[in-house]
């Protein structure tokens, strides 16, 4: 579904990514890990066109999307839950959700009602402005907003940050359920254990390069995986 090959990118004159490879089959859930500042966010920004790649290519369902504009990539079916939530502060919760709603996967899985069922807290807050939500509520909103576009590929950048354990578990469960329905997903998160339960394979970034990648079984087989790659 998503193929990233040799992507390089950076900000201004400083280069951050030095050739990232990543492949995500349809219905797979990939995990991306790495310490702070290693380039995870930059990678997903490159994929979604916000920080255009200076080399390499990104393909979505076979189509080369490297040079497309961010909105074209969005329309092509990649939805991002950005780091730091970025809810629309002056829109109500409902407006946040319907504002960019779409049916890009063609399956039309997610409707407003369904999303609100999933996050009952948002239903309670439906007419409140985005910026008056609590941190965790904003996070839910950002996830829900991405789901409302019915994306082909869903990317979550630290989407469980600031969520209560119970909700966090709910999110992982949802991701598992989505996977079961065939949703392709890329997750960045620091909760190794929870991620390991649902992910098909993982990629570890160190200083803008892929330091390790493989499936979960392989990961468990690496002795001291966390210590080696995540610096614990």
């Amino acid at each position, binding site marked *: 579904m998503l193929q990233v090959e040799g992507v390089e990118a950076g900000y201004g004159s400083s280069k951050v990514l030095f050739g990232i490879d990543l492949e995500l089959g349809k219905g797979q859930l990939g995990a991306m890990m790495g310490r702070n500042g290693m380039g995870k966010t930059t990678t997903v920004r490159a994929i979604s066109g916000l920080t255009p790649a200076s080399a390499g290519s990104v393909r979505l369902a076979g189509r080369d999307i490297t040079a497309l504009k961010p909105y074209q990539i969005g329309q092509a079916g990649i939805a991002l839950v950005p780091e730091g939530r970025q809810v629309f*502060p*002056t829109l109500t919760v409902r407006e946040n959700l319907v*504002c960019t709603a779409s049916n*890009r996967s063609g399956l039309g899985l997610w409707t407003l009602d369904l999303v609100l069922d999933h996050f009952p807290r948002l239903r309670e807050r439906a007419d409140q402005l985005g910026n008056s939500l609590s941190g965790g509520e904003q996070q839910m909103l950002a996830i829900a907003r991405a789901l409302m576009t019915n994306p082909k590929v869903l990317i979550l950048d630290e989407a469980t940050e600031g969520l209560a354990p119970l909700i966090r578990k709910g999110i992982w469960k949802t991701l598992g359920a989505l996977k079961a329905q065939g949703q392709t997903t890329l997750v960045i998160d620091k909760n190794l254990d929870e991620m390991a339960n649902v992910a098909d394979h993982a990629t570890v970034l160190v200083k803008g390069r892929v330091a390790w990648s493989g499936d979960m079984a392989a990961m468990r087989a690496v002795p001291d995986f966390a210590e080696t790659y995540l610096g614990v």
Partner: protein
Amino acid sequence: MSQLFLEQLLNGVQLGMFLFLVSAGLTLVFGFMNIINLAHGSLFMIGAYAMALIGGVTGSFLLALVLSLPVVACAAWVIEVVIIRRLHERDHLDQVLATFALILFINEGTTMLFGRVPLFMDVPASLSGTVTLPGGVTYPLYRVAIIGAGLAVALALWLIIARTRVGMQIRAGTTNRETVEQLGVNIDRLNTLIFVVGAMFAGLAGALAGPLTSVEVGMGENLLILCFVCVVIGGIGSVRGAMLGAITVGVVDTMGRAFVPDILGRFLDPATASGISAGLSSMSIYLLMVVVLVFRPTGLFPVARSV
């Protein structure tokens, strides 16, 4: 006295509606796109010139009205694509400078093309004359028509902003441009669209203002400040705010001009009274704005914003 009072109140409301008509486009572009467009007044002027020129050739008010809107739209489209679009991600102040420069350019260009002499434009026969309103006040029909146009524009504006996803996307784009884009919205195209629509509102106001005011170069600039006052007093980013702000300004201004001299005249000698009240009435709108903002720092009908 009471009939005069009613008439003056009506005048105030009518002025308010006229100001709203001129402010409508400004609200859209400024309140929702967050773009400070000083050249709004120039678009207003283009509308009036197009109307007067086309009206002069065709002799038909309606035809001129219908034809002048596309003229303004074209001008706005060019301005957006060539200049404004590149300034979305820049500081507000860059927009100020660029649109200020645009004013110079458009005004001077208009002078070169059409001279410095004001153009003629008359009220169409069907809207000329006066009507007698319930209560016995006789009122120019054209002014009644302006009120109607103001209401229609308010409705259109409200529909665009509150009822369409486009409105939401624009509001979202002003605060989190990257995020809306990533969610698949072509924000550039949307901005062009809104800018053009806003300009058409300005053009419409200009076209309708022609029979009431002098059609001349720079006719929009005086109004521009007044419109910013209306939009800001009402609270930026809401149609209701702009409307109420405009009516407040219209009524305060009119009532000040209408009655303050008489009231002062009871305490002071006439010459002093007319001098002071004239000074006061020139300041009244600004005084109003200061008072409103000191007590309500985000206008009368604030829309919550991110902090």
